[in-house]
């Protein structure tokens, strides 16, 4: 039994321009103690999908189920969610400055969190615990810094304070939404290390949302690739990087500069990401896909098992056995040699 099981999640927003279908019928699960990486570009629905589970997308129309420890979070009342948020599911966001209240001391904000959920703890104990947590995430002189205000912390320290807060009640699941995007690489390494250590010590499951494939390669056990509000591919880390099935995943990996001395031309994915207003009926990636077939434009493929690795799923009409798939690709490429060249406008 997975810790979190998301089934057929749909999220849409009514806007002045029409209905934005941010997340379209996605399903995934997170195992206890594991890290699920969700990778995708702006507007792929990666953040909305997890925020919805936490009841943080006000005004959205939501359908589907999200079973966390036997309880459907999408059907839960706001009081029930309040109890789960923080205590059982911790969250870290991209921008640590705007997720900490500027008027309150860092320690106070952690104490508030702890005491809200743990009524047995008195003030002094909670402050001591807050200081201890700050120490745990590597903030120097935690007994003193616990009384600092957020602006007295550097960006990396704020993000570490957010981790301390998120982990204060030992949640079973930590949702980290682009936790290191605003940070420098050396600080990013510190923060990822802290998350990983926390996970080793407390067996926390982590959903890590990022656009950085390097971070995914570093920390994820399983990876979900999202595009245009849909899950395109799911695979374990190695399978994703070395035997990906979906052309979008392939395009993403190819568009990165090789981490070696070659300075050969990059191979970008031509074109632009799709609009989520009135998405086309077929595969959202079809307009940019080098292997596109007629069927792709009208019918969305299901997320089916792909390749030889168990648990590897891909939503693509290309044959799912690698040999047949290669042949099909070659046929498409020969018939239409437009390929992956051209910058696209």
């Amino acid at each position, binding site marked *: 039994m997975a810790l979190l099981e998301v089934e057929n999640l749909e999220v849409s927003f009514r806007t002045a321009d029409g209905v934005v279908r941010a997340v379209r019928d996605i399903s995934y699960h997170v195992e206890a103690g594991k890290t699920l990486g969700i990778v995708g*570009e702006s507007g792929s629905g990666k953040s909305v999908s997890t925020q919805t589970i936490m009841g943080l997308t006000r005004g959205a129309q939501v359908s589907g189920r999200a079973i966390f420890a036997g309880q459907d979070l999408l059907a839960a009342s706001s009081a029930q969610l309040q109890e789960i948020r923080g205590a059982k599911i911790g969250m870290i966001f991209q921008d640590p400055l705007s997720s900490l209240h500027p008027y309150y001391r860092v320690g106070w904000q952690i104490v508030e969190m702890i005491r809200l959920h743990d009524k047995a703890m008195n003030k002094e104990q909670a402050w*001591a*615990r807050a200081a*201890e947590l700050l*120490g*745990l*995430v*590597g*903030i*120097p*002189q*935690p007994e003193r810094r616990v009384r600092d205000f957020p602006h007295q912390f*550097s960006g*990396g*320290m704020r993000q570490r304070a957010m981790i301390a807060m998120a982990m204060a009640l*030992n949640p079973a699941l930590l949702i980290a939404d682009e936790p290191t995007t605003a940070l*420098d*690489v*050396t*600080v*990013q*390494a*510190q923060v*990822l*290390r*802290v998350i990983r*250590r*926390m996970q*080793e*010590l*407390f067996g926390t499951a982590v959903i890590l949302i990022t*656009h*950085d*494939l*390097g971070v995914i*390669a*570093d920390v994820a056990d399983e990876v979900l690739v999202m595009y245009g509000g849909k899950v395109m591919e799911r695979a374990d*880390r*190695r399978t994703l*990087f070395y035997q990906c099935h979906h052309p979008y995943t392939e*395009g*993403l*990996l190819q*568009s*990165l*500069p*090789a*981490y070696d*001395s070659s*300075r050969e*031309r*990059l*191979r*970008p*994915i031509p074109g*632009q*990401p799709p609009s989520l207003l009135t998405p086309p009926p077929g595969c959202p990636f079809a307009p940019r896909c080098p292997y596109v077939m007629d069927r792709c434009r009208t019918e969305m493929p299901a997320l089916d098992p792909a390749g030889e690795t168990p648990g590897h799923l891909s939503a693509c009409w290309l044959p799912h056995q690698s040999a047949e798939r290669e042949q099909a690709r070659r046929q498409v490429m020969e018939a239409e040699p437009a390929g992956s060249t051209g*910058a*696209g*406008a």
Partner: protein
Amino acid sequence: MTVTTDGDVILEIENVVKHFPVRGGVFRRKDYVHAVDGVNLSVRRGTTFGIVGETGCGKSTLARCIARLYDLTSGRIEFDGKDISTLSTGKMRPVRREIQMIFQDPYGSLNPRRRVGSIIGDPFAIHGIASGADRKKRVQELMERVGLNPEHFNRFPAEFSGGQRQRIGVARALAFQPKLIICDEPVSALDVSIQAQVINLLADLQSEFGLTYIFIAHDLSVVRHVSDQIAVMYLGKITEVTRAEKLFTTARHPYTGALLSAVPVPDPDQSDRREQIILVGDVPSPIAPPSGCRFHPRCPKAVQQCVTDEPALESRLGDGPDHLAACHRPMAVGENLHDFRPAIDSSERIIEVPGSLLPDDAGAAPADPVRAQAEGSDA
């Protein structure tokens, strides 16, 4: 002390300093942010010079000094054989045609209330060149050249995606066929698949027009891909400068080593193999930078000399004149920073918190997971 090259040097920077005053403190003391503190470098024509470093290292300030968007506190900038460091605004104007900038934020760098055609046409208007139909024609040529549809001449920036907006910025920079384009984080705000489009465009334009780029970015793999030479900056100083490849194979400065090891590699095998050197703490304040080598409080190889003497930027360990490092204790090839412990007084160091989850690569007692667990669970 600059990288000596035999080629034609288009830009020569000598001892450039830029300090920003900050007022505050108890006795209304006047402090300075030492944003750029004595930088020397030279850039060859037709090449790409990459500058990497973390937030606050001064790389963007240096770029703006070169474009003379800031006046220098001191130092000298020679562009195409001419000293431009003290030119007046009027004298600077013709030079500005030849030095252009592309900015990071394609949303913030374009006026949302003006049409794209007039944004790209601005350089023509400012310099009083080409008007009316002629200007429109030239703008449309530029749009076409950067991969925008010339028919979108009358659209507003909001109607374009991030990648297309960055193309608008590139078109505007190209208006007068500049010699030098300073790209300040040109692809950082773009999605991966779009990043590659813009990088390729920049490469095409370079070979077509023989452009010289100064390419500033924090993404090392992008910088490595585009650059011929790379300089690493830390707290307003260049710590190491060399050919792009050499930086990645034979980094001399421990900061370069740590920086390179921290970059996440999009390859699980490489990612599992590499040994990360995790630096302790944060970059110190540029208002009161550390004495001696500015990296010494975080450096695993620091010795007393690093606290007292500032290392010169020069060739180390038998490197040629094209590889300079400002370090008293440069790294040999194959050396592992994990094997070193700083030999300086602890008051000079940023020290790891005992019991924290961060491993200690800089010298204190290693984090003890058992103890951390006990601390974590007993409260």
